[in-house]
């Protein structure tokens, strides 16, 4: 059992030469404004780790959405644009078309990507825009305090579904990855989560893979993250991870949805 006395670092081990992980340099030092335990932070970190590892800080342009991650550009030390709510895929499309040799990604929540911006999302995908969409599906509108999203699970309680989402009148949760995978122009569509160490490792590989495909000019890639929103789910961070594992990933099955060559 652990006691609660802080154990000093071991100077034999805590030396620069033995570092096996430190914050990616492309992540700024600004403290994140996200709630404790929020998946946005993990995904920001992974994305910037990949940017560092591919050494593309000077070649990548990001598009921040309207949603909790509207300030993504405060944390990612790269050139970025902040798009109107839902329009990141249109903004990203144009950036890429203007500079085909640069890397472009959009970073979007589920309200942004699957509700107000679904047209921009589908059409960018359908044109096979050679960019990466990072999609954070936390089943609610986080920023505006937890209203129903298109991805809210059946019967899930939100501030606008106080009696649970009634699919008869409110529709069914949209599985955006499966939807986009049907389009011939999409290249790589995968759904990941970051609710434990194993999933985080896989998620990072997916991001890397998508950006490698972009480098090769393969076309539209999306990495969906089954995220969490402990604050609006009214859960502790640990409870929210459990909810991801037990409920969210039941409906939003984690894994590759579309891979090159078919699956």
């Amino acid at each position: 059992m652990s006691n609660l006395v802080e154990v000093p670092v071991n100077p034999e081990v805590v030396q620069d030469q033995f570092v096996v992980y430190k914050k990616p340099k492309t992540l700024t030092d600004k403290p994140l404004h996200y709630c404790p335990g929020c998946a946005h932070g993990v995904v920001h970190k992974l994305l910037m780790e990949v940017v560092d590892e591919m050494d593309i800080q000077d070649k990548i342009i990001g598009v921040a959405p309207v949603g909790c991650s509207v300030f993504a550009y405060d944390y990612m030390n790269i050139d970025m644009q902040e798009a109107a709510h839902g329009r990141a895929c249109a903004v990203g499309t144009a950036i890429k078309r203007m500079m085909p040799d640069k890397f472009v990604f959009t970073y979007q929540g589920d309200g942004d990507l699957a509700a107000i911006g679904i047209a921009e999302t589908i059409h960018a995908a359908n044109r096979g825009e050679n960019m990466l969409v990072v999609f954070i599906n936390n089943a609610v509108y986080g920023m505006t305090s937890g209203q129903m999203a298109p991805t809210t699970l059946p019967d899930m309680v939100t501030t606008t579904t106080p009696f649970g989402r009634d699919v008869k009148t409110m529709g069914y949760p949209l599985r955006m990855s499966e939807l986009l995978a049907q389009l011939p122009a999409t290249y790589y569509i995968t759904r990941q989560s970051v609710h434990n160490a194993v999933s985080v490792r896989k998620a990072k590989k997916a991001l890397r893979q998508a950006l490698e495909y972009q480098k090769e000019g393969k076309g539209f890639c999306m990495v969906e993250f089954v995220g969490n929103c402990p604050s609006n789910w009214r859960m502790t961070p640990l409870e929210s991870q459990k909810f991801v594992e037990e409920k969210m990933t039941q409906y939003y099955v984690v894994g590759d949805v579309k891979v090159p060559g078919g699956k």
Partner: protein
Amino acid sequence: MAKSLGDIVINIEKCKGCELCIAACPMETIALSPKINQKGYHYAIKVQDNCTGCLNCELVCPEAIITVYRKIVK
């Protein structure tokens, strides 16, 4: 047999006490301090000297504030 000696350094002022690292650590190396940081969060601290440097805590930390060290000793 080679053995790996690990250690972690947490930037406690940026810790939000979410406990994800604690749940992720197979060695129960980490716990929340009874003390709070300037932001008012109980922060994560190393409470056992048994870290293997497996990286789990770092992977799940949303704040990217855990630096992990690993030294292989013969």
